[in-house]
């Protein structure tokens, strides 16, 4: 297979600990980012509607018009759906723009679908996440139809605002 995100580092953020491999029946939710059509045209359109000097300034598109522009080609939709069906993945839903598929499937099925992936659990206090520390691949014929698969490697970013005490420490160190 081909790795779609060969350059995606797998980093377990501080505070998270490995809690072992998940059961084969553990449900996982994967987000398939289907290759969009005509992003170059989308870029030109964004430039036109956002530039006050353009005659098209402010002539925005509805979500449905955006869908008509970016929705994946029939070949992409057919190839990805057939691939999922062939692996028994049926619990999927799409979005209005048709360029994402969100699917629920057991971890064992996901590991067969995405060779190389291995689902493990990571915990941080009361929170628990399932991720694959190993890169996933897709069959070569799928690579041109998928941008990436979400829910595999990235951990959510902790967002923290600082309070004054912490900032003084940083200032002193600086």
């Amino acid at each position: 297979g081909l790795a779609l995100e060969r350059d995606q580092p797998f980093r377990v953020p501080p505070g998270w600990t490995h809690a072992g491999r998940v059961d084969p029946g553990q449900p996982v939710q994967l987000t398939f980012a289907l290759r969009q059509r005509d992003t170059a045209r989308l870029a030109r359109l964004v430039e036109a509607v956002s530039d006050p000097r353009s005659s098209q300034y402010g002539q925005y598109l509805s979500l449905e018009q955006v869908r008509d522009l970016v929705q994946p080609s029939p070949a992409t939709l057919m190839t990805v759906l057939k691939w999922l069906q062939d692996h028994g993945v049926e619990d999927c839903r799409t979005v209005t723009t048709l360029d994402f598929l969100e699917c629920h499937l057991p971890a064992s099925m996901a590991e067969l679908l995405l060779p190389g992936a291995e689902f493990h659990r990571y915990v941080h206090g009361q929170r628990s996440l399932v991720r694959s520390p190993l890169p996933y691949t897709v069959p070569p014929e799928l690579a041109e139809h998928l941008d990436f698969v979400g829910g595999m490697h990235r951990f959510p970013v902790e967002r923290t605002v600082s309070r004054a005490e912490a900032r003084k420490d940083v200032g002193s160190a600086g």
Partner: protein
Amino acid sequence: ASFHLGVTPAILRQRYNMTGGDVGLLPNNSQACAQFLEQYFHQADLAEFMQLFGSSFAHRTQVDRVVGHQGHGKAGLEASLDVEYIMSTGANVSTWVFSNAGRHESQEPFLAWLLLLSNMSAVPWVHSVSYGDDEDSLSLAYMERVNAEFMKAAARGLTVLFASGDDGAGCRRVHSGNHTFRPSFPASSPYVTTVGGTSFKNPFLVTEEVTDYISGGGFSNIFPMPGYQAAAVGRFLHSASKLPPSSYYNSSGRAYPDLAALSDNYWVVTNRIPLPWVSGTSASTPVVAGMVALINDRRLQRGLAPLGFLNPALYQLQERGLGAAFYDVTQGCHLSCLDGTVQGQGFCAGPAWDPVTGWGTPNFPSLLRALLLP
């Protein structure tokens, strides 16, 4: 200059010249902030915040719509901050909160938010997001696709504002053992408007602003510099009195932030307790978002389209002689690598655009006038 004991809505509105009349009037205008993980706000905190700090302007005390799950646990400081300050500058504008806790163990909360945008035909015109990750921690395929999602939002006329981050220029050691700066994504996307941070020069007076040394900024290693900012950034690179060594950054990349607002010493009510000294570009971003929502309100009243993706218009203001729309921040530098070469200093603010505070902070009436021009 007025004395104060920290940034409150009244102080922000005073500094940015917002009058009591600068509040939302249209029922069909709205603004939003996005929360990730288990970050919840409490309506009661918002009500208390407005009771304490909102007496000088017409405002709402309720978030009108929560998209996603709002837990019943303790309120998060970040969520409280977002809601309280977007509703202080974007006063009286209907406000939504997108709450993406990542409830499923294998969900990516940020991706879940993007999917919501791609699935809802009616969403607020303005979105404030205080979220970011190091570019080098993300795959190219992921960043390029997320960038395309921002293009989709821009095509629909949505304004998406991201905090520039709280680590200055950032720092990382590359394979050679040398240091380079560390850009943050999505702040570095060419299709979002990125907000940096400032502090009052005198922390207890409403005076001119200087850079907040934590304000994120720099140049993307992934996305090339978009045409709309090439002239402004080129001028900075040619005229800056002192620049870090060129090996620390990619001078041909998308440069950020685009503008800034106060990011230091805020008051926030969370879990019914007023807390002082809250800081970060997480504070400046909803402040700017609220102002953009107010400008949309006025544009919609005049039958004009909402501002949409703001950057092309923003970078043209100076060329159109409308530079007074911003208070130019020209003093101070932000953080970077603690090494012998740069000694903790990243970029420094200067006249016009710079990679610490962008164009500067909004002078609301001038910015409104400039952006009301058809």
